[in-house]
């Protein structure tokens, strides 16, 4: 079974789940379509949908399967967030550099993710639409210092010009691999690790899910 985060022997494939969060109209869909299909506003997009996309990567000889989960960005669906990002290894939080509100929204997401998932999840904060730099409303310094303060990486991208997207996902994959390794080392033996993996699967609304995992890490 190629469960998320399950690594170990070098011939095993990593499988990561990444959620895409952000307000509507910040370009989440364009970003992921550019990454997986290398297309932008194109009539010839082959996928039927842009909400669940996969990408196979090969990073330093290791195979990585990336599953990218788009989420509905409308405000009315905000409360559903935990159902989406449960068990995810990474989160890409997208804002529009021309829209101050969308950056504020990202801050809310970060707070929520850290509260619910702790440090198990790798966060990327992404300022999209840098091709519209002249209308920028979120300053580079603010965004970067904020990202650093919450332990996230910050990236500038443009789906239109295809800038910064490859780097973003490649970096994220490397970080998720490191986290997976660290977790494995912390857990020591495979038995407890497999049990923890399994526990994560159950889609039950219980918040303290993150706590036992954290306690497990610190004790080991």
């Amino acid at each position, binding site marked *: *079974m190629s469960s998320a985060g399950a690594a170990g022997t070098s011939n095993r494939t990593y499988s990561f*789940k990444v959620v895409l969060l952000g307000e509507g109209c910040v370009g989440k*869909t364009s970003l992921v379509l550019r990454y997986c299909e290398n297309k932008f506003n194109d009539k010839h997009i082959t996928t039927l949908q842009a909400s*669940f996309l996969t990408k196979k990567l090969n990073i330093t000889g290791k195979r990585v399967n990336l599953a990218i989960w788009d989420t509905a960005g409308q405000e009315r669906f905000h409360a559903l967030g935990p*159902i989406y990002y449960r068990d995810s290894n990474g989160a890409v939080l997208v804002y529009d550099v021309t829209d101050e509100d969308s950056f504020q929204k990202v801050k809310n997401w970060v707070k929520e993710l850290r509260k619910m998932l702790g440090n198990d999840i790798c966060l990327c904060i992404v300022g999209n639409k840098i091709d519209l730099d002249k209308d920028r409303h979120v300053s580079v310094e603010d965004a970067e210092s904020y990202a650093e303060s919450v332990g996230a990486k910050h990236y500038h991208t443009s789906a239109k010009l295809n800038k910064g997207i490859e780097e973003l996902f490649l970096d994220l994959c490397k970080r998720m691999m490191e986290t997976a390794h660290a977790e494995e080392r912390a857990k020591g033996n495979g038995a407890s690790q497999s049990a923890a993996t399994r526990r994560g699967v159950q889609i039950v609304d219980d918040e303290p899910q993150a706590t036992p995992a954290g306690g497990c890490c610190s004790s080991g």
Partner: protein
Amino acid sequence: MSIQRRGIHLDQSELLCKKGCGFYGNAAWQGFCSKCWREEKQRQIQEDWALAERLQREEEEAYANRQQKSQPQAAVTPFNKFEERKNKEKSSKVHTVTKFFTPSTKTPPKKDAAPFDAHSGPSPSSSTRRHSCLEDERATQEFIDFLKPLKSGREIFKQCRAFTEGMVYKQDMGADELSECVQDFYQNLSDRLQAQFKGSSDHVESVMDEVEKYMMTRLYKAVFCPESTDDEKKDLAIQKRIRSLHWVTIEMLCVPVDEDIPEVSDRVVKAITDVIEMDSKWVPKEKLACITRCSKHIFNAIKVSKKEAASADDFLPTLIYIVLKANPPRLQSNIQYITRFCNPSRLMSGEDGYYFTNLCCAVAFIEKLDAQSLNLSSEEFELYMSGQASPNWLQTRGASSSSSGSTALTQVHNQADLSVLDKREEHVRKGARQLENDLIDWTNEVEQKVQSALESFPAGTPAPAGTAASEPAPAAPSAIDSENVENELLPPPLQPQVFAG
């Protein structure tokens, strides 16, 4: 029968072994004593084995005879579906019947209750038992066929069989514990397979799919919507909720599909059919496949309407709309069943898992839906929920979402006007009825008076009585006159005469 045994009263015969060997029976052994139960169990297992072997032989013979395999299979499918539905009905019936008996589990099970308990006892006479047996046999056969070419196939089969049979005796465990057991089993088996196939995950996945199919087909009846949970209550709650939200329109949810396009409406219908069909499947993976098919239809509908690939922003509202329109049967039970017993790798990161997560989101949204989430004012929402108004009455299809609010408001006003008119009409009607009654009363009263008047006077003098009533003053002299019989004989009264001069 249950009424009679409501008390603690127990017949001596009920405590004894069902086989009549003279020893005491036990509820945990279906009313058998330990010895008879063991024998019974052994017999059951042997029967199962014999059946499996016979089936295998038959299958092999049939396979040898059969030249074109695909055709007869296709012909069989509709029948299978029908069977499935029949089974499903049966199972739901069984559930309700067993429910009746659950409060009395503390006392030993009644003999007449046992046959209803299809999944926990060896009662070959029951028809449900026979039906599930057929399903079991088919699943077993398919599983054996699948495992045959594998090196370790026999071992895998043995383990799965033993585990599945062991589950039958864990009936009284909570649903979460059962889920834990199954998930542990999946995990251990897949770890072992992983080692065996040297990390070929695709291979492991395909074996695990078959394992899940075999096990869950056999366990379905016992673990779907078990009585230890409130799944059934939740099913009814969400069903009622969706019913009360029948008025929600495409515009309120901002669903980007245009149902005026024939292809789109066709897709919508197919999506609804698929999500409803989910309930008829037994295996979690097949249930998930229904959700995935439904999602694909939705994506097609969005693509045709919007001419671009659907994002999650488009997909989720549409899925919510589909769920509201479909009101799928036993929705919560199905979600819980999939969550508890599906192969975890599928749920966690696969495409099926994504669509399933979205369905969970849709259900969560519907449960918590309020005026704000539909861009309505709370008054409007209340009106719609209470059924006093409906947005569909005057609204034309295709009206933009921004105008729908104001249309709704004018409708509310119209509604109010109509109700005032209604009240007035009612008032007028009431008055008319009152008047009619008054008239009738009056007529009766007059008649009564006349009657009583008639009775109070002798029968011989009807005509003067009438005049007496109307003209009392001159009546008196005339009455005196009338007594005078010789009246006519008297000379006329003297007239004063005037003499000239």
